[in-house]
């Protein structure tokens, strides 16, 4: 019985890590579609969201079932509860990636200043790194890496602010719909990274058993 239970926990954890990797791929595709104007790739990201939703729900259902039948305690309980929490965060991140893909569809065919594309790409590259780190920290129970996520998030916020400054230099004739879509995309990337920081805090909890101070975004710049 107990062996089967342990295997279930392992499988559930592997599934959440795999969801996390799926979200990383989708975020990468979403940013690429935006920067390159690839509508097909953007469509693929939008269409793929259903799968993430379904798998997240399955993790939650499975967790509830295990709690009801196996009475997990201590690290098993922390793991189960945290896996549900982390899966739901990944699911929200996938929704944000979908929003970026939608922005890509809206802006495809129009071309703005290259600086702004470069900034989005730079921000995206940092976000992939943060996402990879959540998966790795969860997989290997790496508390130090989980705690480092907050530091990794900082330059992303920084780029988001820089994005605003660049926008202010736009000339009147620039397309305002294009500009606002790009701002939103930058904002979504910043939100994805914030979710990753929350995941990092939860990984630290599942390993140590101590709730650490929750991170809150410094300011709402929207």
């Amino acid at each position, binding site marked *: 019985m107990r062996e089967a239970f342990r295997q279930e926990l392992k499988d559930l954890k592997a599934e959440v890590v795999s969801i996390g990797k799926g979200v990383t791929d989708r975020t990468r595709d979403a940013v690429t579609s935006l920067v390159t104007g690839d509508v097909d790739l953007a469509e693929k990201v939008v269409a793929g969201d259903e799968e993430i939703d379904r798998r997240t729900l399955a993790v939650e259902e499975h967790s509830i079932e295990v709690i009801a039948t196996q009475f997990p305690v*201590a690290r098993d*309980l922390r793991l189960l509860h945290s896996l549900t929490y982390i899966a739901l965060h990944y699911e929200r991140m996938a929704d944000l990636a979908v929003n970026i893909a939608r922005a890509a569809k809206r802006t495809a065919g129009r071309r703005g200043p290259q600086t702004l594309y470069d900034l989005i790409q730079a921000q995206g590259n940092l976000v992939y790194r943060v996402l990879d780190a959540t998966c790795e920290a969860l997989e290997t129970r790496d508390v130090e890496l989980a705690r480092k996520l907050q530091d990794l998030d900082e330059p992303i916020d920084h780029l988001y602010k820089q994005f605003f400054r660049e926008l202010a230099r736009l000339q009147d004739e620039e397309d305002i719909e294009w500009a606002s879509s790009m701002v939103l995309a930058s904002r979504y990337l910043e939100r994805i990274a914030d979710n990753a920081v929350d995941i990092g805090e939860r990984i630290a909890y599942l390993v140590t058993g101590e709730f650490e101070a929750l991170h809150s975004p410094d300011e709402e710049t929207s």
Partner: protein
Amino acid sequence: MALRTTPIADNAPNKITVKELDFFYGDFHALTDITVDIKEKAVTAFIGPSGCGKSTFLRCFNRMNDLIPSARAEGLVSLDGQDIYETGVDPVDLRRRIGMIFQQPNPFPMSIYDNVAFGPRLQGVSKKAALDEVVQTSLERANLWKEVKDILGRGGLTLSGGQQQRLCIARVLAVEPEVMLMDEPCSAIDPTSVQKIEDLMAELKDRITIIIVTHNMQQAARVSDFTAFFLQEVAGDPAILVEYDRTSNLFTSPKDRRTEDYITGRFG
């Protein structure tokens, strides 16, 4: 975890204090170096694998082990600050203050009424009205009154197992104990009765201190405020108290790896 509006305060008074207790059955060293404070008006659970000394430890509190020749305790066990092993302490009086419930319900072979009136009669209560009152109150507190009020003259042994256990609880309550020791009180009864006894514990702790030994970890988690985990690490060695903490902490974030391994079913 036992549901409640407010958890037991950190500075709640200690009812029983144990310091550096060692316990022996002849040459066999059963427990070593146990130090623990039992909070007043709280439920404290003792858990651990079979043979880890938790029942032995429980029996130190009312000197039940005195009845075993060659058994001896070293160290301090105090009730409200008074050493219970001191010369001059009357074990019979001690056992009135610290009542005990066993795994097998053990009503006396007499009527329900006489079972409950037994203790008060020994204490000299003889007036019928006074006895009637104590019998009713005790059965009410044990959540058994409604089921037996019309059959008080019937033999205690005619009741179901779960009812018998609540009758034994009423019998203990009739002498107004300050502490109730429960040694696996639910392992021989049906689930509905278990539920009733667990509910009863939550009600009783407003007035008395409860210490329960249980093999059922979910039960410990449900009913207790504090949990102590005992372990005999090596066969033949004395058992130790590995970890003692609020139940909510011990079952979510135990500090000791051995506790973690035991409660998550990795051994034992």
